[in-house]
């Protein structure tokens, strides 16, 4: 898989590479977490749905890793499977183990909505390979949003236990969800080049406003609108993630350098 297009010389390559890694790691890690539900989701239809959504996300990660690899002369499989846990750059929201179904729905709802706001902006990126891939990804992500909004509604209206678990998970995850919008280290360069059309802080405010309204419309407890993005939002790693890393690198580690 190659993207083909050679970036112009004015491209802040290091900054673009960092942005691509953030995006790819988010998709990769949530894809692996939720693939853990395959076979044990609350119902058969959901087994199929959550597996399909996870496959989409890992596919998006693959395309992003390929784009990154062609930009930096690296290898996509090495980037995906050949790093230590501390070198991953996914948002802190994605450190948490999948826990129970309400937790998974809360986490994925927060992630999908944040990703939608981010992708809407990146579809306007001056970096054409990214803008094109994002245009394609957004068509698939629509189904994820629709599905997760349906689950959010179902749990919110599903009686005291479901509602309580959902509300607790949303509150627990809210601060770490802000980390999806942790500004990349070279954000100014990305903004100046138009690679990132809007600052992450502006995207985060838009997302928090939309999610806040949706949560309010379901009569769930309000989420604190003043919470900001944590400074270690993309560098903090946990034992939960170290366990997942051990799982998803197991095959690659068993035969380093193998091709299949």
């Amino acid at each position, binding site marked *: 898989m190659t993207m083909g297009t050679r970036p112009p010389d004015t491209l802040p390559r290091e900054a673009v590479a960092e942005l691509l890694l953030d995006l790819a790691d988010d998709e990769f890690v949530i894809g692996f977490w939720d693939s853990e539900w395959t076979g044990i989701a609350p119902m058969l*239809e959901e087994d199929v749905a959550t*597996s399909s959504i996870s496959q989409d996300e890992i596919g998006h990660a693959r395309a992003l890793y390929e784009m990154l690899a062609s930009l930096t002369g690296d290898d996509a499989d090495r980037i995906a499977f050949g790093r230590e846990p501390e070198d991953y750059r996914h948002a802190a929201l994605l450190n948490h183990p999948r826990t129970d179904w309400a937790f998974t729905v809360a986490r994925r709802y927060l992630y*999908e909505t944040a990703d939608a706001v981010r992708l809407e902006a990146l579809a306007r990126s001056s970096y054409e390979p990214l803008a*094109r*891939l994002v245009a394609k990804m957004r068509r698939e992500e629509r189904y994820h949003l629709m599905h997760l909004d349906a689950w959010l509604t179902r749990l919110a209206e599903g009686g005291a236990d479901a509602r309580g678990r959902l509300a607790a998970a949303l509150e627990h995850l809210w601060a770490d969800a802000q980390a999806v919008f942790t500004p990349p280290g070279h954000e100014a360069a990305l903004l100046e080049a138009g690679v990132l059309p809007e600052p992450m802080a502006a995207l985060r405010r838009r997302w928090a406003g939309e999610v806040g309204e949706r949560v309010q419309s379901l009569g769930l407890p309000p989420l604190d609108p003043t919470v900001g993005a944590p400074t270690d939002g993309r560098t903090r790693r946990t034992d939960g993630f170290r366990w997942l890393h051990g799982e998803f690198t197991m095959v690659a580690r068993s035969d380093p350098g193998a091709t299949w």
Partner: protein
Amino acid sequence: MVAAGDPRDAVVWAALDEVPDPEIPTISVVELGVIRGFAFEPMVAGGERLAVELLPTFVGCPAIDVMLQTVGERLRALDVADEVSVELSFAEPWTSDRISAEGREKLRAGGFAPPHLVEIATASAPFGGELAMLDVASCPYCGSRNTTLDNPFGPTLCRAIYHCEDCHQPFEQFKAV
């Protein structure tokens, strides 16, 4: 990108139309609309390359590698250029509207409801216009529109699962994207 009037073009299109989709083999890659185009390009070292652009139906479709390979093999067998390259392209998003009329009929005959034509209402709708994606699927067995969506996700990334309330058959729809 197809050069007008090259007599080899028709031969290439005909050969591509013989390559089946790996997951739904009743339909060809041409009918599926994944061939964006092709061109005969001069190579630096001399000779000519037939370069094909292939649009993935879904970014994470695991059949992509098989598609690239089978398209390449079929075209190399034609012997119309010194080299053949088949590249994955995101130059424009593949949408289910690219499936041809013949392709839609073949899907139906194969037991798959074809996707409805998508008018993408993305700009104004929250989080990307998701409601534009859902419509009633017609049962490929009895033609009834009295059907219900069981699951927008199915056995492959590109399929949704429906149930016909009239003939009581479960069936799959090629998803609208």
